[in-house]
């Protein structure tokens, strides 16, 4: 399996901090989610990181076994 990680308010939208998903193209993985969640995850301000590395474009990304894709809303530290 691969893993989706939801940070910040996305955790509330997803109802859990993470979710196990079947490996495959990200487009397919997102299409299998609740539409309301998928819309939030694809929001303009949401950044994505694959295995801890920021992605500039999710297009063409294929999740392999053990991959972790994190969805990162705008940060607010300090």
């Amino acid at each position, binding site marked *: 399996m691969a893993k989706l990680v939801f*940070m*910040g308010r996305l955790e509330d939208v997803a109802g859990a901090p993470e979710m196990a998903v079947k490996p495959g193209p990200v487009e397919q993985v997102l299409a299998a989610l609740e539409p309301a969640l998928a819309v939030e995850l694809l929001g303009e301000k949401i950044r994505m990181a694959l*295995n801890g590395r920021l992605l500039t474009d999710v297009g063409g990304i294929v999740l392999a076994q053990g991959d972790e894709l994190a969805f990162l809303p705008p940060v607010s530290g300090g």
Partner: protein
Amino acid sequence: MADVRLSLDAFDPAVEIAGFNARHPNAGGIVTFLGQVRDSGGVEALELQHYEPMTLPGMQELARVTERRWPLEGLLILHRSGVMLPGDAIVLVCAAARHRRDAFAAADFAMDHLKSESWFWKREKTAAGWRWIEPRPEDHEDISRWRI
């Protein structure tokens, strides 16, 4: 070499500051910034969330950039994650330099980047429940001062 830490438990800023100062006797100036949970506005608790694979590495990179930009004798960046109560320390930045202006600027730079470019997510609890805090426009204005 900067001292960069992500703390999952409460820390005592006075102890950290005293330790830092003692380690940098050659510095002519030390600037210390402490961010704490404010005890006002009905905030009962504050939670900071971090993302293990990215948060500490990002803080370490921020320290490297800060040290490249100003001649520092020492730099401490210490940030909490987890649930905090009013009065608890959230973040501590100490910058030691031969001259005060470098210390002021380095601490200011590090704080602006911790607030709006580090991998933390913040929510606060009031009588109405938990609410996620989005970054304020001022945070982005603060950081834009440093772009060259």
